[in-house]
C-alpha cells in the first residue's frame, strides 16, 4: 500500500486539510454513504444477532446456577429426630433448612380438646386430623415462625402458652392452640406444617 502522499501533510497545529475525493475511492472518504446493505448481509446479521443473544442467555445460566444451593446441600438437609426423650406435654425445637421446627408431644387431654374444637369458630379453619399424621395424633410438627416473623414460645411447660395451651408469639401476642391453629391476636393464619414422615414409631424425618 502506498505511503502517505507528502503533499497532503500539513503542519501539526493546523486544521486538517480538506479531503481530496478525487484521490480516494468514494467509500473511503469520511462523507461516504454506508456500504450497500444487501439482503444477504441483513440475513446474516439477523441470524448472527439472534444466535448471539441465545448464546449469551445460555452463558448467563451457569453463573447464576453457582449461586443456587448445590444439589448436595439440598439433599443433605433432611433432619431425623428421635422422639424418644420428649415427655408428653413438652416439646423441642430443631433446625431444618435454617428454620426452627417445633415438635410437640401432646397429652391425651390436649388431643381431645383440639379434636372437639368447632372449626367454624376458627379464623383459619382446619381440623386437628388434617395437621397431624394419622395414628400419630400425639405428635405435632410445625414451623416455629409465626405470620409476624417471630419464633413462638411455649415448647417447655414453663413457657407462657396462652389461653389455648399451645404457643404465644413474643412479638404480637398471637395465641396458638396445641396443633398450631391461630386462636387469638392479630395473626391471620395458622402455623405451617413442614413436610415430614414417621420413619419408625419414635423417629421422624423432616424434609
Amino acid at each position: 500500500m502506498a505511503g502517505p502522499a507528502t503533499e497532503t501533510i500539513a503542519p501539526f497545529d493546523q486544521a486538517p486539510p480538506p479531503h481530496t475525493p478525487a484521490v480516494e475511492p468514494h467509500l473511503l472518504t469520511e462523507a461516504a454513504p454506508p456500504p450497500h446493505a444487501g439482503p444477504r448481509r441483513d440475513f446474516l446479521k439477523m441470524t448472527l444477532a439472534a444466535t448471539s443473544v441465545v448464546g449469551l442467555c445460555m452463558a448467563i445460566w451457569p453463573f447464576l446456577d453457582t449461586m443456587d444451593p448445590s444439589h448436595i446441600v439440598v439433599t443433605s438437609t433432611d433432619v431425623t429426630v428421635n422422639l424418644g426423650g420428649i415427655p408428653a406435654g413438652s416439646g423441642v425445637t430443631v433446625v431444618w433448612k435454617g428454620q426452627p421446627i417445633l415438635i410437640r408431644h401432646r397429652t391425651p387431654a390436649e388431643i381431645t380438646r383440639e379434636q372437639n374444637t368447632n372449626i367454624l369458630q376458627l379464623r383459619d379453619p382446619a381440623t386437628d386430623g388434617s395437621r397431624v399424621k394419622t395414628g400419630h395424633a400425639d405428635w405435632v410438627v410445625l414451623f416455629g415462625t409465626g405470620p409476624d416473623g417471630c419464633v413462638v414460645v411455649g415448647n417447655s411447660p414453663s413457657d407462657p402458652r396462652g389461653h389455648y395451651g399451645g404457643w404465644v408469639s413474643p412479638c404480637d401476642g398471637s395465641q396458638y392452640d396445641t396443633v398450631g391453629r391461630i386462636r387469638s391476636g392479630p395473626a391471620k393464619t395458622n402455623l405451617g406444617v413442614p413436610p415430614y414422615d414417621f420413619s419408625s414409631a419414635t423417629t421422624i424425618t423432616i424434609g
Partner: protein
Amino acid sequence: MLFEEDPENPAGRIPVTGPGATRVPRDQGPLWSFGMLAGVSLALMLLTGVFLAMNYVVGVQPFETIQWIMRVVSYGWLIRFMHMAGTSIFFVIAFINVGRSLYYGSYKRPRQRVWMLGLVTLILMMLTAYTGYLLPMGQMSYWSTLALAHTLAGFPFVGHNIVRWIMGGDGIDSATLTHFYTFHLLFALAILGAVVGHLQARRIDAAEAPRLEMASVETVPFHPFYTVRAAVALLTFLIVCAVIVFFLPYTFEQSANFQPADPLVTPSNITPQWYLLPFYAMTRCTQSPLLSLALVVAGWAALFALPWLDPSPIHGPRRRPLFQPALFGFFVVVILLGWAGAHPTTSGWVLLDRLFTLLYFLFFLVGVPLLGVIETPGASLGVSLSQRFSVKALLEGRGAGTLLLAALLVAASATTAARAQDTANVSQDEGWGFQGAFGTFDRASLQRGFQVYQQACAGCHGLQFLRYGDLEGIGLRPAQTAAIAATAQVPGGFNSAGLPITRPGIPSDPFHNPWPNPQAARAASYGAYPPDLSLIVDQRPDGPTYIDHLLTGYGTAPPGVTLFPNRSWNAAFPGNQIAMAAPLRAGQMTFLDGTRATVPQMSRDVTTFLAWASDPSVEERRQDGVRIILFLGFLLFLTTLLRRRIWGVLPRA
C-alpha cells in the same frame, strides 16, 4: 503500512481503534484487536471473580474450599477454571499489548500517559495475580508467595516489619489469607480504575493528534468495518479460551499445587506463576535482598522511562533498521529471563539470570538511547510484521518471528521438563483411555477400581473430597450409592447426654476417613503418612502412569541395597524404599464381572478409579466444551461470512 509515522511529524498518527476513532486505517493488522481482547479478559475475570467470591470461604480450610467449589457448587469448576486459566490468558493478551506498543512506538510523545497507565495496569495485574495465587493454598501457592514476599524484606530497616504487616504474622496463616483476599479484591478494583484511565488517556491523546494522514491514507468507518473484525477476533479468542478452560484447564498449573500447603515441606523447585518469572529471575541475580528489590524496581522504572530514553521521533519500526532487530532481541531476552527464572537457583541458572538481566538493562540504558542517535532512518519501509511472521519466513528459519517462537518453545519445554524433574523414571503415555480431549472412563474398570480401593486401599488411605453420591458417576444406581454410604459411620452430632454419636452415612457425606487425625495415621504407618487419594493422580507428575508403576513396582531389593526397617523395595518410588507394603496380591479379590484379579489388572483399575475421583466431572466438562466450541465455531462462521460481505464492498487496495 499505515502506522509508519512520518519522521517529520511524530504526532501525526491516526487514532487507533475504539470508541475514540470514527475512522480507522483500512489495513491495520490483527494486533490492534488485543486491547479489546484485554478488556474482554478483564470483564471475564471480574465476572468469574465475583461468583467465586460468593462461594469462597476466606481464611478457613482454603484448600477444601476450592475442592468444594470444584466438586459441589453447580458449575463451580467452570468459574474456577475460567478464573484460573483466565489469569494466564489475560497476561498473554497484556504482554502482546505491551509488545505491540513497543513495536509501533506507541509509548512516544504525546502518548506517554497511555503507555504509563498501561504499565500501571500491568503492575496491578501482577499484584492481583500474586495475591490471588495464595488463595487456593496449594503447596506452590504457599511457597512462591513466601519466596516473593521475602523480596520485600529487602527494604532497609523496615523490610521485615513490612512483610509481617502484609502477611499478618510471621508465616502464612488465616490472617494472611484474609489479608491477601482483601488485597486481591482491592487490586482488582484498582485495575478497573487504571484501565478507565488508560482508555481515557488514549482517547484524549488520539484526539490531540491531528488526523493529517486521513486525507492520504485509506481509512474506513469504524462501524461496520472494524466492528465485524472485532467480532471475528473476539470469537476466535473465545474459542481458544474455551479449548483451554474445557480441555486443558491445568495447562498453567504446577502439580505441586494439587497438594495442600505444607509449611514443613518445601517443594523441590519453587517457581512463581509464569508471568512473574522475568522479574523473579531478576531478584535471583544477587543474594542481597535490597539489591534484588532494587533490580525489580529498576526493571520497571526502565519501562516507565522509555518515552524519555528513546530519542528517536520515528514511531514506525520499519524505518528503523537497527532498532527493530534490537527490539526483537529484547523480546527474546525477556522470554529467556523467564525461562531461567523457572529453574532451580543453582549457580549455572543464576549466571543466566545475571546475563539476561544485564541484557535487559543494556537494551534500555544503552541500546535505546544510542540507536535513536546513530541510526539513519530508512528511506523506504523495511520488512513488515506480517512478513516477519509469515509462514514462509518461519519455514525458511529466518526472521524475528522464528527467533521469538524458538525462544517461547525453549522456555515452555524447559519449564515443563523442570516441573517433571523430580519424578522417578516413569515412561510417558500408557494409553490411558481417559486422557486426551475426548477420553472417557471405562465404567467396568471404574467399578472394579472402586472395589480395589475399598478392599485394598481404604483401610489406610482416605478419599476426603469424594462423596458417596458421586459414585453414580462410575455407573452405580442411587440406591447402590445410598447402601454403600450407609455402611459408613459418620459423626452425627451429640446425644442428649452431650456425647458424640455416629449415624449411618448418606450419599452427600464425604468418604469415610480411616484416621481420626494425621498423628494417628502416622503412628499406625511406620511414621509415613498415607496420603489422601482424592487428588493423588494430579499431585504426582505423570500421575496415572506413576500410580500404576508404583502399584506394580514392588520387588526384592537388588543385591547390595539394604532396606531400612519397615520399608519395601519399589522400582517406581523416588528413593526406591517405600513404607507402604505391597498392597495388591493376585487373586486377593473376586471381581463380579469375572475379570481375573491379577496385580496389573487391579493396579490399572484402581488407577483409573483414582483418576476419575480426582476430577469426577471431567467427561461432562468435555461434553460441555464440545458443545460450546461448536456453537462458537458456528458464530465465527457466520461472522466471517458477514465480514466478507462487509469488506467485499471496498475496492481492492
